[in-house]
């Protein structure tokens, strides 16, 4: 046995590198944790003036008017909920269909991999291009519809935003759904078929009840995803800072108001109010994400 003091210079170098290596790894890891804590702390501190200034009125008030210093998030909370819930309602039948079609009906093969490729393409299109396409194609179409049905022909508005948002969340929702459905044990499906049931009856009575919890948390996760979506929504929602009266009204979501006004906000309290809305966004998406993934994890491990 050699003592530490008798280490050759080469050995000592190795020791140093060894320690350095593990310290760097540890440092980077701590950095990641510190970054997240820093993000949370920064937003909280920066939102504090807003809490002090507006208090509960931020949530109970009805208007957002920087000129008259009325700051309430209500119009945007309503706008966000209306847009995302509508988008989910439109997209769920499609996501569920794709999930069942490619996760249950089809054997893995050329068709399923084509569907997967197309879904990946859909997921890979940037938000700003969805928004651009929405502005130039969907907005005029919705305007025609509004003219036809005797509404004010804005074209832009909650309905248009929800339509585009629904296309954007399908890839996400469908891939969760497919994973959840693929987890239904095949011996249960076989037991159903062996009793003389048709595939539809197996879906209706075995697959759906079994995967209910997983599918519901998939919907929840898609909801969390949709809330944070910014660019496409900002481009087609019409940017009106009032509580919308109908789904065809122009409005703003929490993320679109930040996108529109943050760079122009000069008054510190105005900035703080916008950050306060960022905090709402951060907390809701984080809570939904953590909760939804916990449910899926717990469900898929039994």
């Amino acid at each position, binding site marked *: 046995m050699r003592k530490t003091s008798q280490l050759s210079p080469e050995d000592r170098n190795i020791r140093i590198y060894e320690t350095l290596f593990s310290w760097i790894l540890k440092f980077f890891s701590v950095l990641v944790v510190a970054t997240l804590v820093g993000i949370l702390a920064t937003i909280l501190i920066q939102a504090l003036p807003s809490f002090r200034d507006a208090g509960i009125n931020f949530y109970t008030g009805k208007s957002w008017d920087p000129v008259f210093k009325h700051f309430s998030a209500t119009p945007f909370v309503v706008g966000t909920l209306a847009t995302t819930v509508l988008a989910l309602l439109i997209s769920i039948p499609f996501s569920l269909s794709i999930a069942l079609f490619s996760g249950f009906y089809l054997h893995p*093969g050329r068709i399923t991999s084509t569907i997967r490729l197309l879904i990946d393409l859909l997921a890979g299109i940037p938000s700003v291009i969805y928004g651009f396409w929405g502005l130039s194609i969907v907005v005029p179409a919705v305007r025609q519809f509004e003219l036809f049905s005797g509404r004010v022909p804005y074209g832009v508005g909650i309905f248009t935003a929800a339509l585009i948002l629904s296309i954007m969340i399908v890839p996400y929702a469908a891939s969760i759904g497919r994973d959840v459905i693929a987890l239904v044990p095949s*011996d*249960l499906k076989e*037991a*159903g*078929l062996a*009793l003389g049931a048709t595939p539809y009856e197996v879906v209706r*009575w075995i697959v759906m009840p*079994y995967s209910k919890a997983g599918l519901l948390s998939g919907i929840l996760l898609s909801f969390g995803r949709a809330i944070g979506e910014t660019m496409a929504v900002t481009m087609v929602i019409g940017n009106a800072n009032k509580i919308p009266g109908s789904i065809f009204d122009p409005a703003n979501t929490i993320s679109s108001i930040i996108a529109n006004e943050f760079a122009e906000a000069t008054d510190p309290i105005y900035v703080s109010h916008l950050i306060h809305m960022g905090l709402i966004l951060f907390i809701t998406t984080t809570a939904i994400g953590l909760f939804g993934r916990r449910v899926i994890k717990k469900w898929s491990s039994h």
Partner: protein
Amino acid sequence: MNKQILEISNLSVSIGNDTIIDNISMDFHWKKITTILGPSGCGKTTLIRCINRMHELIPHARVSGSILLFKKNIYEMNPILVRREIGMVFQRPNPFPTMSIYDNVIAGYKLNGIKLGSAEKDNIVETSLCRAGLWSEVKDALHRRGAFLSGGQQQRLCIARALAMKPRILLLDEPTSALDPKSTGHIEDLVSELKESVTIIMVTHNIRQASRISDFTAFLSKGELVEYGSTEKLFTVPEDKRTEEYLSRSAG
């Protein structure tokens, strides 16, 4: 009386380029227990899956030959109808976890969209559970989910579920391979009683089990039907050397 209940002729199955079943022909006997015996990978599970067309779930499986059920070719029938006549119990107990014990037993009716009156349902559930020897153990917990049942009880629940459809043939795919000896004994007794009312075809790799309960035994090796005859004869004076070898090696 030996009704022509099920006749397999010239059945071959291949998956991709592998031949799983190689030109098998055999008749089954009315209200008897036939076991299909053989080393693992010999194609015995594929064989019984062909009988209720469950092999169609395997991609790229090709089948030739015919299987006649009461003189009707099952490959010309709708699989749904075939499976109503031929029930199946799987290797691992697979009760539906989202349904109560009661609903599990009548699951076949529910899945097939058959509406029953509640008295009729109660009757079917009780009869099937009695036939499966489970009634006395679960009659007070019918509306609970089956998760608390032991493996053997779950398997008997699956048998009850298959029996509820009043099949004429019951296929058992190594029904005791996932069970402890005591539960295995239960299932064996149960199967022996069931032959009063239903024709049973059982796959097993347990030679003692085959000799204990079956009337006829078929020995499969590498997809080929080596020998088929009464259990007594096959176990005492096997005709084929391969059978003899398998029986002696596995018994010893």
